[in-house]
């Protein structure tokens, strides 16, 4: 059985605790990276990560793109939508097609 987790600042992810997700508060990129690495080794299927943290992590997320699990999914946090999640889709399209044809 795989687990689902959420990483981000407290305010953004608290709500997920009530519906049964594991929440791991992280305020800086270093903690988040550490948590992610641990989760990729354990049985986590989905990790929801706030866009704020993702933009700080940068390239460190790329290695999770080619692994079947965990799926690292970006979600907007309380401070608003930065568009990072949409950009990650565009990145996939660019990788596959050569340019972003779905703009």
């Amino acid at each position, binding site marked *: 059985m795989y687990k689902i987790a959420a990483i981000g600042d407290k305010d953004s992810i608290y709500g997920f605790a009530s519906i049964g997700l594991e929440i791991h508060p992280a305020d800086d990129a270093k903690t988040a990276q550490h948590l992610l690495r641990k989760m990729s080794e354990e049985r986590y299927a989905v990790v929801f990560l706030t866009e704020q943290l993702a933009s700080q992590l940068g390239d460190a997320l790329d290695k999770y793109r080619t692994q*079947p699990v965990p799926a690292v999914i970006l979600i907007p946090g309380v401070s608003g939508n930065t568009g990072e999640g949409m950009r990650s889709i565009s990145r996939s399209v660019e*990788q*596959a097609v050569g340019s972003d044809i*779905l703009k």
Partner: protein
Amino acid sequence: MAVMNVNPTRMELTNLKRKLVTARRGHKLLKDKRDELMRRFLELVRENKALRQKVEAGIKAANVHMAVARSVMSDEALEVALMMPSQRMDVSVTEKNIMSVNVPTFRTEVKAAKNGEIYSYGYAFTSCDLDDAVQALSDIMPDMLRLAEVEKTCQLLASEIEKTRRRVNALEHVMIPQYEETIKYITMKLDENERRATTRLMKIKDMMLKETHHYQ
């Protein structure tokens, strides 16, 4: 295009011809694979985009309620209300095969204490905005998992498409032309050898005839 560094012999020629046939067949198969992967990918990526818009809107709505709830409740009260969830969500992962790319599919299994009860607290000490926030998140959760599944699939397909495209291009623009050039080179060389042998024989014949019959 560079000719490969091989001996111009008949054996090499046969080998190369066989390799060329294999390369052409591989190229055709990989091209078909790439096209089909691309078709699937484009379908999924459109779904991915739509799902993401939906999920982001849902989370935004939940966050609005959450922000209000936070402003009227103390940190401790909020923590007490949320830290002991009444349900636990796990997923079982099965693998699906899309054109020999293994992609995960998720099925959630919710272990709830009480059936249909998503609130982990009594209503006495909490704001109703917290109820709305939890309800909104709970509603969007199936979509979030579907999003996770689709987005992961897209990422995996994208890297497979990239690899396949490189292989197709390498075969089409490097391997196949190289084989063709080399085959041409060997054929020419062998023909040249044959002509050389013929001319030599003719010349020797002339010389021998001259010697025996003193032909001029």
